[in-house]
């Protein structure tokens, strides 16, 4: 039932709004609303009950193993939430003068510094509000760099075919055309093809390392040298930073720009779709272009850097300073981990992934890149199951839900057929990994003996398999927009 179906005309919960308000007399009728908005009229108890019950219809990290590859669904420590929601932080107006902001700004300043440190970059801005916006800021800085040097001929961004969709989409938003670079079977970028593609038209390359195939790009130095030699810049998509935290730094690999998905590596909750943060870092030569605002410290007083301080900045990504509450959560998480904790993240995320891959291979599953160590994630391909049993990766995914596991990422990266991209993260205990492995083994047996069972899954959730085609054809995007049956 929808909240609208609980609504009764005239019902209200009085305590949430001023009890009475005089009619508005100083606004002409023509500018006023004629009829009240058709919002639900329900009691506080109905609201609490409805949304509490709705919440129970979600899988989440707090309730399920959630090995969604490329998404780093790790434990979200509860302290991060509590401390970011301290009344003093919640009630701070974004434009409050600096004298009322030193506590908050101290956190932001230190967060900038810690991010520089873990990535090996010279400066960081916390402005971007998600990975994709970080990419935008990063590529916009690359463009600003070339433009500042009056190097206007660079119209192309190179992107490996394994890249996340946000990479090419971002390049377009920044006015570039995209050229795809193929990936070899062993998971490395095809350096020969890269070399062939690179040229004076190359603004730069966007790369994830380890890649979305879950392996470390071994030729990174050669790739960096190739791009740099051609006058291009190197962009690091930080979605996979969890794999290398404290082990190797993008700056040291030669990257000029990086965004970090704080909602992945630094464990701010994903909230059913966001908010996140795509903080961006740059090497020294790109410093002037970082987006605003940033925090600096003069004589022990924190102050905002603005257009006056940074005339070459690419500008602002939001009305204020990005997702401040998310940044506070990431800050708390990093302080909890500390120096000793950072590299353990990469180590145990990698240990968990390699353990699962080894076990699954031993149980007969086919790894996409079988002969290399996995990074913090790895891919199995179910192409033989699809061919021989007509049971697809999607069917496996749906059946996993029945068995109490969120499915891994399916059908990404696009170049591996019938793939499951599995990322356990460091915070899962061995039992959870073992349970998931047994579940996959069980589904494999079901697929062999009773494929219809798997193809009909799920059975135990609030709904059975949903008709996505119908959704796109018979668009029903709002209550009341089309008559219900």
């Amino acid at each position, binding site marked *: 039932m929808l909240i609208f179906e609980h609504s009764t005309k005239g019902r209200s919960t009085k305590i949430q709004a*001023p009890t009475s308000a005089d009619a508005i007399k100083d606004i002409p009728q023509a500018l006023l609303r004629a009829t009240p908005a058709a919002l639900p009229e329900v009691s506080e108890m109905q609201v609490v009950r409805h949304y509490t019950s709705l919440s129970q219809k979600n899988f989440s990290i707090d309730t399920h193993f959630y090995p969604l590859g490329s998404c780093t669904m790790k434990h979200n420590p509860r302290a991060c939430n509590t401390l970011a929601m301290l009344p003093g932080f919640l*009630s701070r107006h974004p434009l*409050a003068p600096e004298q009322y902001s030193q506590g908050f700004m101290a956190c932001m300043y230190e967060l900038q510094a810690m991010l520089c440190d873990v990535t090996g970059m010279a400066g960081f801005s916390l402005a971007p509000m998600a990975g994709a916006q970080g990419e935008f800021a990063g590529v916009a800085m690359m463009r600003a760099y070339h433009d500042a040097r009056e190097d206007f001929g660079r119209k192309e961004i190179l992107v490996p075919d394994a890249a996340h969709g946000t990479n090419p989409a971002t390049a*377009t938003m920044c006015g570039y055309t995209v050229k795809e670079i193929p990936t070899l079977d062993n998971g490395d970028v095809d350096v020969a093809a890269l070399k062939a593609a690179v040229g004076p038209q190359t603004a730069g390359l966007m790369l994830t390392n380890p890649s979305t195939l879950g392996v470390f790009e071994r030729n990174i130095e050669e790739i960096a040298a190739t791009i740099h030699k051609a006058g291009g810049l190197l962009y690091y998509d930080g979605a996979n930073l969890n794999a290398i935290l404290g082990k*190797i730094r993008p700056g040291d690999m030669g990257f000029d720009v990086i965004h970090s998905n704080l909602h992945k590596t630094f464990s701010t909750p994903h909230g059913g779709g966001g908010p996140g943060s795509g903080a961006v870092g740059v090497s020294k030569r790109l410093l002037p272009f970082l987006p605003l605002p940033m925090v600096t410290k003069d004589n022990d007083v924190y102050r905002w850097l603005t257009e006056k301080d940074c005339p070459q900045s690419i500008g602002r990504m939001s009305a204020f300073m990005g997702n401040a509450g998310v940044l506070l959560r990431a800050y708390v998480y990093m302080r909890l981990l500390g120096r000793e904790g950072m590299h353990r993240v990469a180590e145990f995320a990698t240990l968990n992934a390699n353990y699962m891959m080894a076990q699954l291979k031993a149980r007969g599953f086919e790894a996409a890149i079988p002969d290399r160590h996995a990074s913090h994630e790895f891919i199995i391909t179910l192409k033989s199951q699809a061919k021989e049993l007509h049971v697809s990766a999607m069917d496996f995914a749906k059946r996993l839900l029945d068995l109490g596991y969120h499915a891994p990422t399916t059908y990404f990266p696009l170049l591996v057929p019938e793939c499951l991209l599995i990322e356990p993260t460091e915070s899962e205990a061995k039992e959870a990994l073992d349970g998931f492995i047994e579940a996959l083994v069980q589904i494999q047996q079901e697929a062999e003996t009773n494929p219809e069972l798997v193809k009909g899954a799920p059975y135990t959730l609030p709904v059975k398999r949903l008709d996505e085609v119908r959704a796109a054809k018979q668009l029903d995007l709002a209550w009341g927009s089309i008559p219900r049956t």
Partner: protein
Amino acid sequence: MPFVPHTEEEIRDMLSIIGVDKIDNLFDEIPAHLKIDGLANIPEGMTEMEITRLMSSRAAADGHPLCFMGAGAYDHHIPAAVWQITTRGEFYTSYTPYQAEASQGTLQLIYEYQSMMTALTAMDVSNASLYDGASGLAEAVLMAVRANRKSKSRRILMPRSVNPVYQKTCNAIVCHQDIELVTVDIDTSTGLTTLDALQPWQDDDIAALVISQPNFFGNLEDVDALTNWAHEKGALVIALVNPLSLALLKPPGEWGEQGADIACGDGQPLGAPMSSGGPYYGFMCCQKQHVRQMPGRIVGCTLDQDDREGFVLTLQAREQHIRRSKATSNICTNQGLVVTASTIHMALLGPQGLARVAASCHQNTVSLVEKLAAINGVEVIFDGARFHEAVLKFNKPAAEVLAALADKNILGGYDLSSEFPELDNCILVCATEMRSDDEINTYAQALEAILC
């Protein structure tokens, strides 16, 4: 080890299954000379007790100044239920609902959100959120350029009465795609965007006109006339609105003869704390015919195998993970959790409750303006209809007055002089429903003491 559950024994077992001796061997593909040995500059880890102490003292250090500042972020009451439910683990720690059957909670909630937003704006469809109001305006501009098939132009009319930071953000985002934001001047006596000011573009090909209601100064634009003007010349109308105001004001879907084409704005007034500027969310609604040009996720209602209703992400072919370099936008992660809060907030307030909140904000601001204007050296410079914000002019530099107020623990308002040189000595004030009569008097007394 914080958040790493492995025991020594388990580590040994796992390594032996993998067939390596130690964890470090798993990193042997990384060039040795690039490897680092930990991160010496990161401070030592803290216990939860220690970080709690640190953060509590920092939060307390920022004090609780009395807030008469709006300018895009508003100090509203948020029912306790809103964030208690929103931060339930099942909402708080789930990912984007890629597996629909295991995410019906989030999906149904977004569908309800979309329904509420279309009800508030009187538009046909809503997306599931963009980052914030300012970047959302940029997306609306990009969308308008795509959606306006009649126009070949990439020019957008952008009145100066639009929040100046929104203008800057918008420009930073759209500037790479040969889009031109053409500035339309403010009428200095009314603080409005007039048809006269639009006259210069009467005969030009324009993709869209942005109309902010209320505008940045709190003034109410003649939205019907502006909308009709744009539509008559084949330009689309992008409505930039405060969603709370829509509980009282004419919704964009009803502006002029045909209604606005796209409505966007910041959702903060509907349940997001001011929180230093975020997370808020950008909402976006449009007319049905433009839905395939709309950026961002959209949830649709469909049926399952037993013909039961259920909810899925739909129209994904517009998005980056399918369409890649040809997508409507690069947006992926959005502001889902804040949308969750906002949906619960709207359900708790209801249409009457939201209208009373809006009216009460407006009345408090009226009362504040009356009291301040009675002080020697304070002048109200625009006197048309407005909603819950107003521009005041002092007989002294605004920065000086605001600093003096800040020393008395009062955020007196937003200094307009740097963005609007013609509004020298001017500030923008706002008193939401949270400001009591006592607090308004405190402000008036403090200001009087400073000016006289």
